[in-house]
């Protein structure tokens, strides 16, 4: 089963545009962790995200799109990055997240990815072709 490990770094909601990781040792320890995920055949993909101050939100309050530039005043927990992993169980996903060289201000949220088989039959019928679409989409990275 596939899981997303969502990295939520405290304080990132107010990080200035252009903020990047600068601590070489920390980047190196994260790389070692990524390598461990990879060597175990668990890692599908991972990415880091620029701060919300460089982002935008599109909301559809009445069905019509409204664009708001970041940062977003009401946000308390924002995404700093993620890993997509393939493991046998939720417990295994939690065990992997627990091994992350994270800092005290960081929280990792584990969420299972919806597979086609999780949908009811009528939904599967309408969504058929989605998996094929995913494999024909551009390769990651």
């Amino acid at each position, binding site marked *: 089963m596939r899981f997303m490990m*969502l990295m939520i770094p405290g304080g990132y909601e107010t990080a200035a545009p252009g903020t*990047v990781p600068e601590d*070489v040792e920390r*980047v*190196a320890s994260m*790389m070692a962790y*990524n*390598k461990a995920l*990879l060597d175990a055949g668990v*890692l599908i993909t*991972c*990415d*880091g*995200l*620029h701060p*919300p101050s*460089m*982002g*935008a*939100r*599109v*909301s*559809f*309050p009445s069905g019509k*799109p409204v664009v708001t530039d970041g940062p977003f005043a009401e*946000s*308390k*927990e*924002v*995404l700093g*990055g993620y890993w997509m992993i393939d493991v046998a169980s*939720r417990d295994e996903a*939690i065990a992997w*997240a*627990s091994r*992350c060289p*994270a800092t*005290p201000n960081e*929280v*990792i*949220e*584990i*969420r*299972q*990815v*919806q597979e086609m088989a*999780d*949908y*009811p039959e*009528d*939904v599967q019928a309408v*969504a058929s*072709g*989605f998996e094929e679409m995913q494999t*024909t*989409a*551009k*390769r*990651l*990275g």
Partner: protein
Amino acid sequence: MRFMVIVHANKDTEAGVMPSTELLAAMGKFNEEMCNAGVMQAGEGLHPTSKGARIAFTGSEPVVKQGPFDVTSDLIAGFWLIDVASRDEAIAWMKRAPFAAGAEIEIRQVFAAEDFGDALTPELREKEERLRAQAARK
């Protein structure tokens, strides 16, 4: 440049309510357009946080908290990864997304190797590229 489009959770997604057939069909068409334009790299929906967990690293040992988590505008229900020429293009694509009234999505640029500057030493960068190539073969 690559962007992650985060679809925010709401009471319905957290309750496991499935979108209507009409909305699914419209979303399928939208995804197809993005694929045909060479924009879409990935897109997934996530199970509600009731099936999830959080791991905090405040003490010496990681602390696991089981879901569900309070429904705030910060919770996530799904995402796309798209590759476009600019933030404006990402916004333009997402304004066309066939969402029902009340939906909210967030557009965030993905870090590229060159964004890290000196912290990503040439050695680390090479390692990172090797790792990505290896993961992509899975």
